């Protein structure tokens, strides 16, 4: 709470105490400054290969050095800690932790709900992007701003709002209950929350591509006798495919890891509506660090694979873009 405490913990007087990571920070600083001195990050002359291209602009060593140090301290070291912890488990230990029915069903719930939500978002995200780009209607600016709300609204706020809306006594939930559909406290509720979270990813990925689509291509298609529907299916949709896939992957990745908006609406019944991030928290609260580590590592690997897929998709998108 007290600010002094924060500053003490963040930056202890190095002369007085030398924590174990002191050596690490010092080492990192040394590596950065040494590589700077030796010109590793500088313009190098011909034969030594061009690690860096000469530029007249200043500050390369400084900005890159600080960026890398910050990146290393805040992101890489903690993630490495997770990886090393996981490595300590060994294969059998790891397998024992993640192969329990509760963990497996949590993964199943997380994957299927994220998948369903991402699919819903592909369809409706495309629709929203289409309407925003192609049509003009009153209140368009407001609608455009609304699309970004899931980015900006804290997830916990979204979680409690969606829950009270879709609970059986809520506005929408009560209507659906008459039809026999229960949303809140079921996997369906998770899908609703993840749809909310993932929407802007699809819309904001598809929108610019749709904007840059040359109308001439569509006119050509129509002048060659294609109907509006054929033009959409055979000219527009293929051009949007990379963007739609990227948006899908982004929404799916976000959905897998989402926590705040889901836990309120999910009901969190082990085996039925318990998601992986919640399970990690439960394990941590039980001080079962091994279990948390194993599950977290598996999640991390999944995220990395998705990140790779997203990067490849984006490269594909850029390639397409340059050709057209």
């Amino acid at each position: 709470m007290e600010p002094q405490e924060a500053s003490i913990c963040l930056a202890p007087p190095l002369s007085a105490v030398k924590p174990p990571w002191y050596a690490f920070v010092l080492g990192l600083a040394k590596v950065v400054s040494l590589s700077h001195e030796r010109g590793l990050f500088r313009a190098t002359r011909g034969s030594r290969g061009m690690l860096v291209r000469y530029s007249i602009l200043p500050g390369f060593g400084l900005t890159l050095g600080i960026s890398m140090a910050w990146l290393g301290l805040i992101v890489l070291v903690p993630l490495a800690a997770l990886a090393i912890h996981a490595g300590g488990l060994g294969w059998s230990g790891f397998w024992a932790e993640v192969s329990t029915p509760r963990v497996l069903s949590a993964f199943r719930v997380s994957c299927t709900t994220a998948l369903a939500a991402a699919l819903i978002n592909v369809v409706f995200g495309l629709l929203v992007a289409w309407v925003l780009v192609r049509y003009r209607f009153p209140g368009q600016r407001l609608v455009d701003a609304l699309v970004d709300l899931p980015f900006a609204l804290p997830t916990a706020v979204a979680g409690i709002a969606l829950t009270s809306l879709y609970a059986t006594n809520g506005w929408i939930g009560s209507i659906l209950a008459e039809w026999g559909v229960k949303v809140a406290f079921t996997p369906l509720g998770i899908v609703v929350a993840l749809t909310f979270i993932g929407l802007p990813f699809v819309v904001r990925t598809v929108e610019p591509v749709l904007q840059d689509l040359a109308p001439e291509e569509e006119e050509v298609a129509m002048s060659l006798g294609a109907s509006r529907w054929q033009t959409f299916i055979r000219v527009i949709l293929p051009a949007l495919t990379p963007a739609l896939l990227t948006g899908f992957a982004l929404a799916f990745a976000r959905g897998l890891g989402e926590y705040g908006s889901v836990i309120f609406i999910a009901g969190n019944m082990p085996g039925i509506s318990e998601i992986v991030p919640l399970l990690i928290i439960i394990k941590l609260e039980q001080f079962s660090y091994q279990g948390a580590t194993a599950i977290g590592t598996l999640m991390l690997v999944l995220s990395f694979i998705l990140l790779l897929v997203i990067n490849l998709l984006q490269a594909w998108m850029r390639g397409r873009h340059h050709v057209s």
Partner: protein
Amino acid sequence: MAINISGISKRFGAFLALDKVDLHIQSGELLALLGPSGSGKTTLLRILGGLDRACGGTITFFGEAALGLTPRDRQVGFVFQHYSLFRHMTVRDNVAFGLDVRPRRDRLPRAVISERVARLLELVQLAPLADRYPAQLSGGQRQRVALARALAIEPKVLLLDEPFGALDAKVRKELRRWLRRLHDEMNITSIFVTHDQEEALEVADRVVVMNNGRIEQVGAPGEVYDHPASPFVYDFLGNVNRFECIISDGTAKIVSIGLTMPAIGAEPGPALAFVRPHDIELIRLDAATGDAGGGGVACARVRHIHAIGPTARIELDIEGHRFEAVMDQDRLRCLGVRAGDWCGVRLTRPRLFSSNSAALIQE
């Protein structure tokens, strides 16, 4: 001697952009670096301006080694290809920038700066637009702002990268004549990069033709146009007909069209003959029947005549081998040759280059 470039090389990864370039630039001259894209001309300009670093060689500016100097210390003005005006500053602020950023001890008083800026804007004929932003100017106006901005720091050398590249044809012509006049008034040593041969030949005192990181030829515009030193220069400067030929016993024979020409003392072997279209003479066939196919005249079919303006372009064909001649409309009318006719062809000023070494064999 204003600038002395010796042995300058530059490598980007595996790509050799400049290969030991030597060049001497006279004080007060307007020099064009001419070449296709990738020939190294812009790289050379950027190294001169201190924006890029050479991998080897030396450069002196007015007798002083320049490679270690910052752009500020070199006292060069650089005009960028896309103008690179500061988009958030007015025209006036753009021009004043170089004077505003001087260290406090060297900085001129405010009044002097604004007086100088006003004078420069007058010079580039933009005084009424001083408070506009770059986005509100036309391409030609932006280019003149860029020039005024570079001149504001009173450079000893002015470097211009494709100064007219992004302008449309008409503005480009006006602006390059204006640049020539400006240079004659101010007499600053200036180097500009271009890929447009017409521009280089019209504006520059001397033209440096570059290709593949090397200088192919340096000379006055008339000299490089009339006496190209290599097949590349021939090809690059103006239209030219290229014939493959074989040299033996002191004569060169163009096999495809059956013409021969003397090549006394030349090594036997394959060679290339270059003939400008206006150096191809057409002869009415009835006057030429006497020696058609003999020493100097070949029989060609007129495929097509493009006759627009004072000159006519005639497409000729000898057994499927096509080439081009250019002549005055009046002369063509006198000859009375039409598309589809046969006529005699004589090459008046062929130049022979060895196929292997690209060396000049004979004028």
